[in-house]
C-alpha cells in the first residue's frame, strides 16, 4: 500500500456510468423538474430502463457482500458509491432522492428487519416499478436532538398504536411504506425507542402536507400524521427480541449508518459545487474571451482557482472517510469532518459562482440559481454543521472525558 490517488478500475467504471446517466437523463431535465416540483417523466423512464434505484447508492444491495474481503483486497464499495453519487448530484441534487427504492428506509429494514420483514418490504421494489420507501425520524419538536422524539407507541392486542407527527419526510406521501420511529415513553430515552414499518393506506395514517421548499423542489418532502394508527405487530422492525438485545448492546448500529451516509451527503455537495464551478468557469471563458487583461477577469480567475481548491479538498475529505469505512477502520470523526467542510464549502462556491455571473446568476432560468437554493440543506440534513462539529470536537477530546 502506498499513498495513491488514482481511481481504481471499479471506481472509474462507476464514475463513467453515473456521469453518462447524469449527462443524458438528469441534467437536461434539472430545471424543468425543479419547476414541476417532481421528477421528469424522461428521468422516471430512464430509471426503469436502466433498473436504477436507491439501493445501489445506500449500499443496501451490497448487504450480501462477504464481511471480510479476500486476503490482500480491500473493499471499495463505499468509495464507488461516492464517485457515482457525485456525478448524480452534479446532474441534479434531487436525482438520488427521486431514484426509486427504499431510500433511507432501506438500511434499517436490511440491518434490523427480520428475514420475513426484509422479504416482505424490500420485495415491493422491482426494477420495473417506480416505488419508494421512506424514513421518518424528525418531528416538529425533535430535529438535531433526535432522541427527544415524542411520537408515542403502545401495544394493544396484536397491534401497536401510534400517535404523533413526523416532518421533513423525503417521499413521505408517495412511499409504499415508511420506517417510523416512536417511543414507548419519552422518559425512557433511547431505550424506549421502537421502529415500525407503516404501510401506505394504514387507517389513522395521513399526509396532510407536502412542503414548499427553497430548493430540492423536485423532491417530495411531506408531513406524516399518526392518529390512533394501528400497525400490525409483525411490522415492529426486528421484532420484540431485537429491542431486548439492543437494550443491552446499545445503539451503535443507529450511529453506524451516519458513518456511511455523511460522506455520501458530503460528496453530493461536492457534485453541486462542481456544477456551479463549471458554469462559472465556462461563463468567464466565454464572456471575457476578448478582454482577458481587465482587472475583473483576473480577479474572477483567482476566485475560480480558489473554488477549485476547496472543492477538491472537500472531495478528498469524503474519499478519506469512505476509504476508512472500506478498510473497516473507525471513521466517525472523518465522516463528520467531510460533511462539516463540504456543507459550508458548497455555500461559498455556489454563492461565488452566482457572483461571477452577476445579474445573470440570479435569474430563474439559470441552473446556478437553482444550485444555490439546493445546496443550503447540505449543511442541515444528515446532521447540521453544528452537530458535525459536536461530533468532531467530542472525538478530539474523547481521551479526556471520563
Amino acid at each position: 500500500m502506498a499513498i495513491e490517488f488514482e481511481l481504481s478500475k471499479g471506481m472509474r467504471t462507476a464514475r463513467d456510468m453515473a456521469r453518462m446517466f447524469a449527462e443524458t437523463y438528469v441534467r437536461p431535465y434539472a430545471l424543468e423538474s425543479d419547476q414541476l416540483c417532481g421528477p421528469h417523466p424522461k428521468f422516471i423512464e430512464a430509471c426503469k430502463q436502466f433498473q436504477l434505484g436507491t439501493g445501489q447508492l445506500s449500499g443496501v444491495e451490497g448487504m450480501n457482500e462477504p464481511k471480510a474481503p479476500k486476503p490482500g483486497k480491500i473493499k471499495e464499495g463505499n468509495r464507488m458509491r461516492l464517485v457515482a453519487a457525485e456525478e448524480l448530484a452534479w446532474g441534479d441534487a434531487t436525482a438520488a432522492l427521486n431514484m426509486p427504492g427504499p431510500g433511507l428506509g432501506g438500511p434499517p429494514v436490511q440491518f434490523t428487519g427480520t428475514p420475513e420483514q426484509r422479504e416482505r418490504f424490500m420485495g415491493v421494489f422491482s426494477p420495473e416499478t417506480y416505488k419508494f420507501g421512506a424514513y421518518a425520524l424528525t418531528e416538529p419538536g425533535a430535529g438535531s436532538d433526535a432522541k427527544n422524539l415524542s411520537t408515542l407507541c403502545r401495544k394493544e392486542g396484536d397491534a401497536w398504536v401510534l400517535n404523533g407527527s413526523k416532518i421533513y419526510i423525503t417521499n413521505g406521501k408517495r412511499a409504499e411504506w415508511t420506517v417510523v420511529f416512536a417511543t414507548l415513553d419519552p422518559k425512557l430515552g433511547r431505550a424506549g425507542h421502537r421502529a415500525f414499518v407503516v404501510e401506505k393506506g394504514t387507517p389513522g395514517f395521513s399526509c396532510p402536507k407536502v412542503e414548499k421548499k427553497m430548493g430540492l423542489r423536485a423532491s417530495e418532502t411531506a408531513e406524516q400524521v399518526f392518529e390512533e394508527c394501528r400497525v400490525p405487530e409483525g411490522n415492529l422492525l426486528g421484532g420484540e427480541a431485537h429491542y431486548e438485545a439492543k437494550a443491552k448492546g446499545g445503539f451503535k448500529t443507529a450511529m453506524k449508518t451516519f458513518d456511511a451516509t455523511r460522506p455520501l451527503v458530503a460528496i453530493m455537495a461536492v457534485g453541486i459545487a462542481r456544477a456551479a464551478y463549471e458554469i462559472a468557469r465556462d461563463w468567464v471563458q466565454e464572456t471575457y474571451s476578448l478582454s482577458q487583461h481587465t482587472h475583473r477577469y483576473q480577479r474572477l480567475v483567482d476566485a475560480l482557482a480558489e473554488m477549485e481548491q476547496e472543492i477538491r479538498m472537500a472531495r478528498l475529505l469524503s474519499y478519506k472517510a469512505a476509504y476508512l469505512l472500506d478498510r473497516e477502520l473507525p471513521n466517525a470523526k472523518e465522516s463528520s469532518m467531510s460533511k462539516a467542510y463540504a456543507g459550508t464549502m458548497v455555500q461559498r462556491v455556489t454563492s461565488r459562482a452566482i457572483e461571477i455571473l452577476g445579474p445573470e446568476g440570479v435569474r430563474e432560468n439559470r441552473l446556478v440559481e437553482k444550485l444555490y437554493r439546493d445546496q443550503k440543506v447540505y449543511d442541515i440534513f444528515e446532521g447540521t454543521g453544528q452537530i458535525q462539529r459536536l461530533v468532531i470536537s467530542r472525538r478530539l477530546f474523547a481521551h479526556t472525558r471520563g
Partner: protein
Amino acid sequence: MSFSFEADEDLEAIVEAVRGFAAEQIRPQLRELEEARGLTAELAEALVELGLTTLPLPEALGGSDDLDARAEALCVEEIAYGDVGVAAAIPGPGSAAVAILAAGSEAQQRSLLVPFAEPSDPLLCGTLAWAEGPCGVEPGAIEATCTRDGDAWVLAGSKRYVLAGGRAQLPLVLARDTSSKAADPWDRLKLLAADGPLAAEDPDRTMGVWTADYATVKLDGVRVPAARVLDTAQPGTLREVVERTLAHVKLTQAAALVGCARAACDYAFNYATERQAFGQYLYEFQALAFMMADMATRTDGLRTLVWEAAWAFDRGEGALASALRAHQQAAELSVSITSDAVQILGGHGYLWDHPVEKWMRDARTLSLVDGLTVPLDRASTLTLSL
C-alpha cells in the same frame, strides 16, 4: 493497487522515526534555534545521519530510491511538526537537486550532488537564486544576466530572497543569456550552478522562520565554469525544469505548513484540556470546541491535498498545478489555524512562553518568504476540470 490514504509499512516506520526525532531533538530547542537564527551543527549532523538532507536524491547519488516525493512530504511534515523553522532550513541540496536531476548531465549530477551524500560540513546546502523582486519567476522579471567568456559564464545583477544566501555552497542561478535571441523568453534563460557561496549584500530580517536565513546576493563578476551550466538548450526545456523545481519547492513548503498546522492544533487542543475558566475546561466551551473542530477538519483536508500533490509529483503529471493548489490552501489555512491556536491560549499564546506565537509568525512568513511567486497560468486555470 490504487487509491489509498495510507503509507506502506516501511515508510510508516521511517515517518515514525522522524516523528520521534522531532519530538526529542527539535521541539525542546525550538526557541534556542530561533534565536540563534540557524541550525546547530549537531542538529544538522543528526538530520544528515537520518538521511533527511538527501531526500530528493536517488540511490546512486547518496539518496534512496525507495523515498519518493510522498515520502519526502511525510518526512518534512514530521520535522515541521517538531518545528516548522527547522523544516524550512533543512540542509542538503534541497530543491536545487530537482533541477539538477532534471537537466544536469550524468557528470554534473555526480559532481554537484554527490558531495551532499557525506558532507564535510553538515550544514552544506544548495539554494535557488531565482527571484529578484515581487514578480517572482516570470521570465520577464529576470534581469540578472550571464555572458559567455571563454570557458566560463560571467554573471551580473543581483538576486533577492535567497535561502542561505550568503553561505549556500551550491547556488543555482537563473539568469538571462545576453546573447540569446530565442523567441520564447523562457528559452533566453539559463540555469548556472555557481561554485561556492555568493556574496550576501543584505541579510533579510523576516517576521518568522528565523532559522532559515534569507539574503540578497550580488552576482556581479561571478564566473561560473561552463561545465556547471545545465543543458537547457532544447526549446521548452528550461521552463519544464523551472516548473518541476517550483513544484518541489511548493510541495515541500506545503508539507511543512501541514506539520506546522498540526503542531499548533495539538498544542492548543492540549492546552484546552488543562486550562479552566468559569469552572470548566476550555474544551467544554462550545465556542472553542467548534473552532477546534474546524481547525482539525482543515488540517486533515489540507493534508490530503498535499499528499495528492506529492503523488502527482511522483507521477509527473500535473505536478505544478497540484503543488500550487496545495500550497495556496496551505498558506491560507496554516495562517488561520495558527492564529486560532494563539486565540485559544489567549494572552499566554501571545507570549514567547508558548510556541504558538512563533508558529503563527512562521506560517505567515514561510509561504511568501522566498519570493518564488508563480504566475498563475490563467489559461490553464480555466481549463481545469475537476
